[in-house]
């Protein structure tokens, strides 16, 4: 037997025994949730007003993706049936957002970082040997032979989802850091094509972020239930939702059951238990975290009954009876899945809306009056940061005109007042720093000048 054949046999043998990467709700469901959330958010208006994109969410944006870039292969993985697949690097703003949702699951082992147990504050940890898990990843086509030995393949563990979103770009290239960088570049890059590219990538990152957040609305993802929910039962809740609603019919976002948080990570978890992970973990079971089977006295029926509460009528199916007539077994059946999905998907949508509002929060108002450019902070009070003022020439080439250090600014405060840029056809203003709550923020505005201000 050759070495290759031996390896193939080993892979085949371990495939059935060890876990693979997980993806929470089906990608189409999550793309549908994100799409509806974006349509229900103020993102369209913000793109129209602050980014100077007349078509808002339907503005076409082209990414400059060179041959050989890993993004090329990742784009090719997207099934275009939902309209998410970029074509020759082109997609609408909304399409980039939903493509980001899908690409956060490509390659599949990114999903290892989509778990978070709010009771331990840990990410995924599966009780299997890392080597066996990495071998299984090869067999399932979601890892490489090289990854078995380098440790790059999925090994049954992952970073906690909030930490993954906040990780530096060297660890997660599509997290919050990337979003902020690209959002800034979308206003500061020299050429219109570069700014389109940056805005598209910012939306890809936003899609990736909301995908991770949406995973917190899957009980298995917040109860460290990989083995039973995904390995044994192959995500019955996710399959139920896909079959019932597909991508197109996902329920619209509900009402956020908490005040809008100051920080993105608070949408995942906070000390008051108001994060999506907290609420999901404490209100729902996953297949592998149901109450243990038990023997209870004086129960003689053998039919299926349900335990539930005012919010979730079918929280778990319980079969009583068995040989002694006193066994009690819990499981999740189709009625449970229906109740879970009907409760969870609108709530996930509400959290995704809140995440998009958080990512795109704040407003700068740039106006020209009596030959002077005024920049005023709107909507959100700002902390320390830098305000950069840029001007476009007649071909849209953008150059930096001035930078102003800001210590803090209340809503309505004037950040800068200066002579209207000479010769500029358009002015862009960008603040990058933190808001008054200390959370990182990028805010931009653009103002078209009909003719050179010097004339």
């Amino acid at each position, binding site marked *: 037997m050759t070495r290759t054949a031996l390896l193939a046999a080993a892979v085949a043998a371990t495939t059935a025994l060890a876990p693979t990467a997980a993806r929470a709700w089906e990608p189409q469901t999550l793309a549908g949730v994100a799409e509806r959330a974006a349509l229900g958010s103020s993102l369209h208006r913000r793109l129209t007003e602050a980014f100077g994109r007349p078509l808002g969410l339907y503005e076409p944006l082209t990414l400059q993706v060179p041959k050989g870039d890993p993004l090329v292969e990742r784009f090719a993985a997207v099934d*275009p*049936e939902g309209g998410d697949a970029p074509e020759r690097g082109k997609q609408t703003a909304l399409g980039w957002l939903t493509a980001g949702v899908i690409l956060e699951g490509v390659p599949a082992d990114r999903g290892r970082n989509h778990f978070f147990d709010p009771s331990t504050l840990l990410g995924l940890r599966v009780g299997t040997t890392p080597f066996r898990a990495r071998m299984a990843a090869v067999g399932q*086509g979601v890892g490489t032979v090289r990854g078995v030995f380098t440790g790059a393949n999925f090994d049954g563990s992952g970073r906690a989802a909030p930490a993954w979103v906040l990780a530096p770009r060297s660890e997660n290239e599509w997290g919050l850091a990337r979003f902020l960088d690209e959002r800034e570049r979308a206003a500061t890059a020299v050429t219109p094509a570069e700014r389109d590219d940056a805005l598209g990538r910012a939306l890809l990152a936003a899609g990736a972020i909301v995908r991770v957040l949406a995973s917190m609305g899957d009980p298995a993802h917040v109860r460290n239930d990989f083995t039973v929910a995904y390995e044994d039962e192959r995500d019955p809740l996710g399959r139920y939702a896909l079959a019932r609603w597909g991508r197109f019919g996902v329920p619209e976002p509900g009402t956020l059951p908490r005040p809008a948080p100051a920080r993105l990570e608070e949408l995942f978890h906070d000390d008051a238990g108001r994060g999506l992970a907290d609420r999901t973990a404490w209100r729902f079971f996953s297949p592998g975290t149901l109450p243990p089977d038990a023997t209870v006295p004086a129960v003689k029926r053998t039919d299926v009954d349900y335990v539930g509460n005012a919010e979730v009528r079918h929280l778990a199916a319980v079969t009583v009876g068995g040989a002694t007539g006193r066994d009690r077994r819990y499981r999740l059946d189709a009625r449970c899945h229906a109740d879970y999905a009907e409760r969870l998907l609108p709530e996930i949508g509400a959290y995704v809306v809140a995440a998009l509002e958080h990512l795109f929060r704040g407003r700068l108002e740039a106006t020209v009056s009596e030959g002077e450019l005024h920049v005023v902070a709107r909507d959100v009070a700002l902390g320390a940061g830098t305000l950069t003022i840029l001007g476009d020439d007649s071909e849209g080439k953008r150059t930096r005109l001035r930078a102003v250090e800001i210590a803090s600014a209340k809503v309505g405060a004037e950040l800068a007042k200066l002579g209207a840029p000479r010769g500029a056809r358009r002015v862009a203003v960008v603040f990058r720093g933190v808001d008054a709550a200390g959370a990182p923020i990028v805010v931009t505005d653009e103002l078209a000048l009909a003719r050179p201000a010097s004339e």
Partner: protein
Amino acid sequence: MLLTVCAGGCAPLVAEAPFPARPDTVQPGDLLGPFDGRVLDAATGKPIAGAIVWVSWGFEVGRGLSAPAGAVTKSVETDSDGRYVIPRLAETPDDQRRVARFTLVVYKRGYTAYRSDRRFEDISPRRDFSQTMNLVKLDRFPVGASHVRHVRFVGGSGPLKVALAPEIMQASLELTEAAALGSEGGDKGGRDEAPRALLDATPLLSVDELRAATGYTGELTVDRLGDLPRSSTYDSKHFRATGKPESYDAAVRVWKLPTAKMAESRYVRLVAELPGAEVRDELGDKSVRAKEGRLLGVAVLDRERAAVLQLSCGADLCRDHDQAVALLRRILPRVDRLGLSTTTTPTEEEAPSKEKEPAEEEPSPSKDDQQFRLRPPELRR
């Protein structure tokens, strides 16, 4: 278990088709195809030629819990008898990828699209799709229904996306209107959406006034320009000189937007699309003059009214730009009078004619229209 180790190559891994092989059997179809069927107008029963039939085979990788792994798409058009044939998938996936799903979309402008997996009306799963002898009955797209919702429903890529481009523009306008009304998002998912109120540009300019201003004595018919759909923020009037070339025509476009900033954004886009635009700022807050062949154009931004107006006038109707500017100056204050209307005029949104192509909801531009507009708005900045 989906995976096996194959020494000499394996047959492609294919999920079970969720549809039957034919309408008259319960035998499951083959996800790989081939597929065939016929597309008919639901109201008339007549075949629909030229409908786009777009299909996608989606691949996945991984066992149970998996990731998207690409797709193969194909697009054909129905023939004169409304028939389509999609050949069997030739490029079967390699090694560990499997064919996870098949999706078929039928799209014809003016009709509600058809998907093999779900119904538009009530979002329920579709149960009547079959691999062969499939019958597709397309309903006319309801007047006032949400284009945001329809664009979401259609999805797709390639020729399908190209055909959908005008609806994408309408979807954008819908969202802008929704934002203005404070109801963020134009897609509430409902099936019984009330018709939206539409902007009515009629008070801006009458035939008599155009005649008086230009001295033209010939017959003028009034229609709407067909390149952009009427909406609650946009309307147009096309004064067409009967029996004369387009250089005797005139047209007015008006955008009445929720905010001055939106109007400014619209104006900037319009100026970018106008050929040979020359900044004059002689009207409103900003204005330009433009010229293409024997067509003169003037566009103006009025921030206070959050409005953008464009007047196009043939050189045989308006003697020069000054006359066009004077006319636009005269009608600009009338933007205050513009109202919204839920009534539709027979020329644009009436019940479908049995003889015509389904262009009532959004008429396709005639050849004259295509020439007359100073440059078609494109789906790009």
